[in-house]
């Protein structure tokens, strides 16, 4: 892909989605986040979040760990190196898109 191609063509299909980009955004700040935190922060249902996390995990962008605290299961999600890089790249592309639209308008 050429560097001067239109930014819209460089948007990543897997992460170019509000919830999935939100998950990676939170994980870019925190080393890991619990399933409960992500669900509440993003305002989605358990099932919805599970589906989005699964898509990211299948793409190798996040890793899911399960642990037991006081015999209760807890799910943690962390971004992989590839996930952090993909997030940065997606945000840069979105910013470029906004800048390009702004320049065209002016």
């Amino acid at each position, binding site marked *: 892909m050429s560097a001067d191609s239109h930014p*819209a063509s460089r*948007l990543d299909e897997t992460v170019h989605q*509000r919830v999935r*980009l*939100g998950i990676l*955004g*939170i994980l*870019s*700040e*925190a*080393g*890991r*986040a*619990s399933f*409960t*935190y*992500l669900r509440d*922060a*993003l305002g989605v249902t358990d099932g919805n979040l599970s589906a989005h996390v699964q898509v990211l995990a299948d793409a190798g962008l996040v890793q899911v760990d399960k642990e037991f*605290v006081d015999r209760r299961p*807890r799910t943690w999600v962390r971004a992989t190196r590839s996930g952090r890089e993909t997030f940065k790249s997606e*945000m840069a592309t*979105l*910013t470029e*898109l*906004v800048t390009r*639209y*702004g320049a065209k*308008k002016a």
Partner: protein
Amino acid sequence: MERANAEQLIGEVENQRGRARKALGGYWFPLVLFGSLALVAALTLELGAPERILALWIVAAPVGIVATSIYYGRRAHRTGLSAPPVPFILTSLGIAVGASLLGWLGHDSPIGYAGPMLVIGAGYLVFAWLQRSRLAGAFAVALVVAAVGLYVIHPPHGLSLSMAFLGLGSLLVGAWNLRQVASAA
């Protein structure tokens, strides 16, 4: 994709990142703990028991590190967020090794107290960057400036002064951060 959609998406993601950053921003516990220890050390020195300082830090530093790890572990379970631990562990180790080494090498010279303070200030600067805290960053810079000042001026009771400054400053910054965390909860 429309410009408005892209802007809205960026805004939402930045908002979520900001909230996560805020939830991770409580760093008062280690500051209050190690600040108190530094004040006790300064007081011990002034009361004429310098030989007890080494014993104090040998016992208190590992206990303080374990207590801080437990605090962050519990906080992670409470909030559902935890920062990557490796940069914090490496910085703490750097401070412990660097400050001990300079304190030992510079015994009976200004390097013995200005050196550790400089290392602690530099370490706090890294912590401030990791926590994205301007207040902690300003305190770290103040520590570095004070370390250079102490080295140049070489005042009497330099070791006590450096520990008192570190202790008092850490307590004040820690108390301020605790207030911020409490008001955000």
